[in-house]
């Protein structure tokens, strides 16, 4: 009996071996290798590498540019997470009910998600630039009312956020719609018979039942937000004056423009720790809440 069990587990192990191999090759090995590099003075073309302890980490945590990039990323992630969730939820509730052209609208809202982020970014650079300028001249909007979408330090991050929300809201909307359709119609019917208004049904029945989905979407949005790279690269290259330099863009600049490979690896380990902590906290929070439900 024991022998068979043992034999079985070897068999199972063989089955996962190919996946394990690639997991090791493309995930574990690079991960541990960058951990090692982050403790060295690795530099661009220089083949010599020396161990320098935690010096790169101290530099990262005392460097104004890097700390600024963390702050920029936090602001951006908060903005996108909140408003993408709100938009996605709003459209999901709208398109879940009896609405003409329901399927058509779902497809339309989901469409931006099929486009590459780089292309989306360039399209929006065009919208914020040429399209907006011709709009301004067509309606002769006074100068005081004009908005400098990507050139103003305060606006640039918001403009980027709007682009990201436009791109991803449709995807989260689909998740919400799927979860709304799981709510049993009897519940809603019963509430309607008891005289609940549409707004009351949403507030008292649909939203509470959607809480686990909101949690999941929030985690997905936060991790995606912290890893944002394409949009700032294509839209602003991090400018003006670092106002839109996210952590990933900062890491890229350190590693590939300044050639400081070791320092860049240390910065990416810091990013990894930040994302891990946030995900762990959200996960614990969700489990404690979800514990009573399930």
């Amino acid at each position, binding site marked *: 009996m024991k022998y068979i069990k043992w034999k079985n587990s070897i068999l199972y192990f063989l089955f996962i071996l190919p996946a394990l191999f690639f997991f090791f090759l493309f995930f574990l090995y690079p991960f541990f290798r960058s951990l090692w590099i982050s403790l060295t003075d690795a*530099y661009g*073309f*220089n083949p010599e590498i020396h161990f320098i302890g935690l010096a790169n980490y101290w530099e990262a945590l005392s460097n*104004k540019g890097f700390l600024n990039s963390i702050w920029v990323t936090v602001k951006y992630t908060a903005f996108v997470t909140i408003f993408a969730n709100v938009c996605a939820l709003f459209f999901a509730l709208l398109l879940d009910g009896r609405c003409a052209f329901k399927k058509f609208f779902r497809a339309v809202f989901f469409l931006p998600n099929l486009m590459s982020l780089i292309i989306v970014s360039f399209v929006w650079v065009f919208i914020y*630039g040429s399209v907006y300028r011709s709009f301004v001249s067509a309606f002769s909007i006074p100068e005081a009312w004009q908005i400098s979408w990507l050139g103003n330090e305060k606006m640039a991050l918001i403009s980027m956020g709007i682009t990201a929300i436009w791109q991803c809201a449709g995807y989260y909307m689909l998740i919400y719609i799927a979860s709304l359709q799981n709510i049993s119609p009897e519940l809603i019917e019963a509430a309607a018979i008891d005289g609940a208004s549409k707004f009351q049904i949403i507030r008292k029945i649909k939203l509470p039942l959607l809480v686990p989905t909101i949690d999941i979407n929030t985690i997905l949005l936060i991790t995606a937000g912290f890893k944002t790279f394409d949009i700032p690269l294509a839209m602003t290259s991090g400018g*003006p004056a670092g106002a839109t330099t996210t952590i990933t863009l900062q890491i890229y600049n*350190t590693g*590939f*423009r300044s050639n400081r490979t070791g320092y860049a690896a240390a910065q990416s380990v810091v990013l990894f720790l930040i994302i891990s902590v946030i995900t762990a906290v959200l996960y614990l929070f969700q489990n404690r809440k979800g514990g009573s439900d399930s």
Partner: protein
Amino acid sequence: MKKKFAAFLSILLVVGCLAGCGNAKSTEDTSQAKPNEQDASTPEPAAKEDADAQASKEPVPIHLFHQKQEAQETFAQIIEAFQKEYPYITVEQEIVTNDPASILRARVATDETPDIFQGALDTMDIASGGYIMDLAGEPFLNNINEEVLSDSSFTDGDGHVWALPIDGSCEGIFYNKEIFQKLDLTPPTTLSELDHVIEVLEKNKITPFALGFKDSWTIKPITLVVVSPAIYAKQDDWNELKTSGQSSFADTPEWKTTFDILKKIYDHGNTKTAFDTDYNGACNMIAQGEAAMMVQGLWALEPIKSINSDINLGMMAMPVSENPEDTKLFQFPDFGLSISANTKNPEECKLFLEYLTRQDTASLWCSSSMLFSAIKNVSVDFDPLAADVNAYIDSGMICTQADRGWPTAFQTEYEASLSEYILGHDSLENILARLDTAWDTAVKAAQ
């Protein structure tokens, strides 16, 4: 039905594979056919013998890697002529414009360094890793202008030559000569004359400077045209002084001047839309006469002319003090090619570089790329604007050094500090102190 479709697909795939093989073979054929063509068309018997001798040699491929997209055609012409002379060598050019530095770094790291490559700003870094062949003492270097060679950022203090400089470019102020004539203005040679020019232009509702700061790299040239004459023309060893701690950003008053002039230009340009406008937008402003001046490198000539070919454009140096003697034009080697230290065919690579330093090749290169030649006795009037630049060169009012000797990791910090200063993020004292630290860190990192 499905089966038929699958069969059709697989036939298509097989045909595709075969077509692939066929192509590879046909390119081989043409490369081998070249010597024969050459035999038939060479008129002189001496050259024919020479070609015959070479045709019998083993074919040698050379891989040329660069990022100068606009030079693709010119290179193709040069390579064709070169291969006529050396039929056994095949030069293949690869042009990478999207992040060439990273791609080159990956090639070097995986031991696939191209035989001949443009290391651009990374040249010295690559050389310090031991990946570049030293060209010092090669006879073809005698064809290069001595000043260019000695001032070249590819030559280090120990006399190593890490790249062959082929052409020179300059950075300065492009100005619209028509606007200047109409308002009776002359190119300023002192800072107070510059103030006067700005005042007159603004009185006449013309934006003095076109700014395209959405592309943040366009900010840096404005400071380079100041530091080159103001600091490096007087102390050409400023970088070494800084590294050894004998000088610093905070203690060099000219750095304050540099940031002041940058602020002045920002304040007297399309300030409100500066960070919304990109490089092309700024070129458009000066081309359409909306702005009278723009600080840029010679490379901006082509885009400006392509928008408005009738524009009467001039180039002048930036005033940096009240002394007209200081107003010098910033000139520097632009395109340079290095040979990999590990190339299998060093002799053939040198032959190609030698070919590039010949006078007729150099003329062809410079007239098409609209740049000044680094080769002796080659001067090309590619544009009326060249006369302005030549006037500076002839009177010796040029300076050649600025950012090329800076440590690589410092460059990004420097670029970041410029926009932070003009947007008022920090005081000048703090920014200069930060530049001092950034320099020291960068020097340490590169060791």
